[in-house]
């Protein structure tokens, strides 16, 4: 959104109403002037250049855009960026610590839970929300929790294994990441 995000002052003639928002993204406070209709997914991708969040559909089915909103998974294509004002958003870029991978990231790699990698960020964030609520899920519970996230490559089985791998790891380390 060049004109919507970074260069709002350049073309006053566009007469687009903008609103200033402050959103904590991956622990860092970001402020932006945005059009009210701007989708959160587009703000993250284009405005904040956090392109790990993907969009795979236009009907809220695929979950490739899943981020954590105050810790809960949301489909960022179905939320206006202005709704995130004052809230915390976690994207895939905020998943790893400074040096270490999150156990989910390790699990996806170890269990070959990704191929093209397009669904992966959304999958991992949906799984993170699950594991925070339910640290020891069954396979069926993992499948249910990820049923809002489509994957076209893996056939899901290795994704399920990856999440269970991460759950084990997180329980071993007492949930410390």
């Amino acid at each position, binding site marked *: 959104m060049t004109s919507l995000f970074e260069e709002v002052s350049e*073309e006053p003639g566009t007469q687009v109403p903008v609103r200033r928002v402050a959103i904590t993204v991956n622990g860092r406070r970001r402020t932006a002037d945005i059009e009210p209709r701007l989708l959160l997914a587009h703000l993250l991708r284009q405005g904040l250049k956090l392109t790990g969040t993907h969009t*795979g559909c236009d009907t809220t089915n*695929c979950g490739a855009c899943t981020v954590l909103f105050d810790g809960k998974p949301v489909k960022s294509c179905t939320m206006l960026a202005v709704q995130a004002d004052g809230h915390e958003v976690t*994207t895939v870029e905020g998943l790893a610590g400074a040096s270490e991978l999150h156990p989910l990231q390790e699990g996806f790699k170890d269990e070959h839970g990704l191929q093209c990698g397009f669904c*992966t960020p959304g999958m991992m964030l949906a799984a993170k929300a699950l594991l925070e609520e339910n640290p020891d899920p069954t396979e069926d519970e993992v499948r249910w929790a990820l049923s809002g996230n489509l994957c076209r490559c893996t056939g899901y089985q290795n994704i399920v294994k990856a999440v269970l791998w991460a759950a084990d790891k997180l329980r071993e380390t007492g949930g410390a990441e």
Partner: protein
Amino acid sequence: MLRKEDRRFIRGRGRFVDDQQLPGMLYLAILRSPLAHARITRVDTLAAEAHPQVKLVMTGADLAARDLAWMPTLSHDVQAVLATDKVRFQGQEVAFVVAEDRYAARDALELIEVDYEELPPVVDVRTALAPDAPVVRTDLDGKTDNLCFEWETGDAAATEAAFAAADVVVVQDMVYPRVHPAPLETCGAVADYDAVDEKLTVYSTTQAPHLHRTLYALYSGVPEHKIRVVSPDIGGGFGNKVPVYPGYLCAILASVALGKPVKWTEDRSENLTSTTFARDYVMRGEIAATRDGRILGLRSTVLADHGAFNGMATPTKYPGGFYGVFTGSYDIGAAYCRMTAVHTNKAPGGVAYACSFRITEAVYFVERMVDRLAGELDVDPVELRRRNLIRPEQFPYRTRTGWTYDSGDYEATLAEALRIAGYDELRREQAERRGRGELMGIGVSVFTEAVGAGPRRDMDILGLGMADGCELRIHPTGKAVVRLSVQTQGQGHETTFAQIVAEEIGIPPADIEVVHGDTDQTPFGLGTYGSRSTPVSGAAAVLVTREVRDKARLIAAGMLEVAPADLEWEKGSFGVAGDPGKRVTIAEIARRAHGGELPPGVDGGLEAQVTYDPANLTFPNGAYICVVDVDPGTGVVKVRRFVAVDDCGTRINPMIVEGQVHGGLTDGVGMALMEMISFDDLGNCLGASLMDYLLPTALEVPDWETGYTVTPSPHHPIGAKGIGESATVGSPPAVVNAVVDALKPLGVQHADMPLTPSRVWDAMNGRAAPPI
């Protein structure tokens, strides 16, 4: 070995096309036809042009004035880039807008006014050739009907004779409905024309970057050396990203016109309605056999819906793709196929979605026919298959339609699947459940694939031979870079090609960088589809590494002061036979190759390039067993188990092979049970979003049970066959056979995909109807 490419994807650091943000980049959006068939009487773009953020608006008339309104397709047809006189399918490109951001571009689309004069559409493939059918392709000189092409294979007379001599003949009509590959990432491009260098760079979702470059040059007149196509990370392809779409060309035209980078990213509904569909074959099958179940003849009559333009990506001499392998895994005395392809008012395509050039259709056809025959003879479907399988000693086996299968041990592959599934026990369980009125079904599919297109004498696309290249350079410090002409879309080439080279030269895979997708940097080749990477480029990778190794031997001989013939290769180094102290590593040889004294006649550097022209396709095979439960009260099908045993010869990376199989099986379950792009009488696309076009989630698929056998390809340098599409090809008939088997007590002999609850319910109640 774990995948090298994962490190960036798990961090959100993949580089997909829509991630590209270039300075000054503009956004392109396409206005699409709301109607399936209509004359365009007026297009008014004034209001759109007046939008303060709009930089450019173009219509079909604007392109026609520059002689750019039509582009060549990969099937020697033409396709409208932007419609001029008429629109021919719903979703067809009519005009485009370039604006400062994608929201403004979309706003401006709504300011364009188009007047249409509606024409009756051709929707039903079965009536497309009726004398009174409206003609779709009025753009073609003298065209008075909707015939796209006719094609035949096999021996009609011999097949007729086989049928005359048969004890049993079974006839079955079946439909392989139109589906869509629906990669999670849609198609898109960023075109960046540099007016100073006169160089066009196109970042795009393409499975075949070199092929696209050539087509861009042919279409736009920009010389080919001034075009660089970059296919960065691709979020799945599945054949959807082989053709050139109008959107790419619009972005190129806009960038050339404006001198700025222009991005086009389609949304999901555009992807489903306008990019390549898959399948859409209406088939009649006839199978002839002796009473004891020897198949004597097989006849297939196909009516193929190709949509408005023949945009099918297929080798020139194969308008019906490789459907000719429809005799499958069986030694059948006579076979004949007659295919009629027609134009309708629908989006173009046909070959996509891991079909290996129509083998999905061929395998579905033969596996259903064999099952129908088994039902007719009241023989177990496994037993009937066993009586007819091509035996290992018959390879190389020439089919009655002219294909030479390279190798296979079908009985062994089947036996492994039966073992994993516990087939006899399953049949006992089924008998018990049937006694209780439960609907349990067991479906089998024993299939043969044909992948790795292909031999240059027979196969080309746009006149470009289907060979593929690989280049290997060893750096002075012994690290390497390998450049491929094929293009991964998640299949793991960055890992497996490093493994291939590592195995041949003894450099660890971590020290080998795999470069792909940039036409300025990689050797020419036709790209990745049809599971051809391993058979073609994989072979090139082996051969180029061996060539480099041969040169390394000469240099090593100089370093060790012996004759080259006295050296023995042991992974990573050459040593003098019988003298363990005298040995040089490939890194030492590489250093010498770049500096120091070389033997006479040996030039510096350590690198080579190979273009591999395959001698034949590879023919991987598999045996699949699916177990379903059908809810008698609702018609809901639950896939309870799925056993997949694949044989792709030498397995380069078993973990990756298995992942390919899992993904393909999920496609198969999706096609068999859920997916379909259908149209109403007006030609409205009824599968235009993920609300209607249903893809399997984690809940619809079981834990896959996989196994393998290994029957190497004798003509491939490491015996490896393709595998990527096997599961998509082989699994739908297993699922359908299982559902039909479940419904057998109700007298059901066939039901067409997708076996949604309502369609199964209809079949259960004797109302099975072909999908429309």
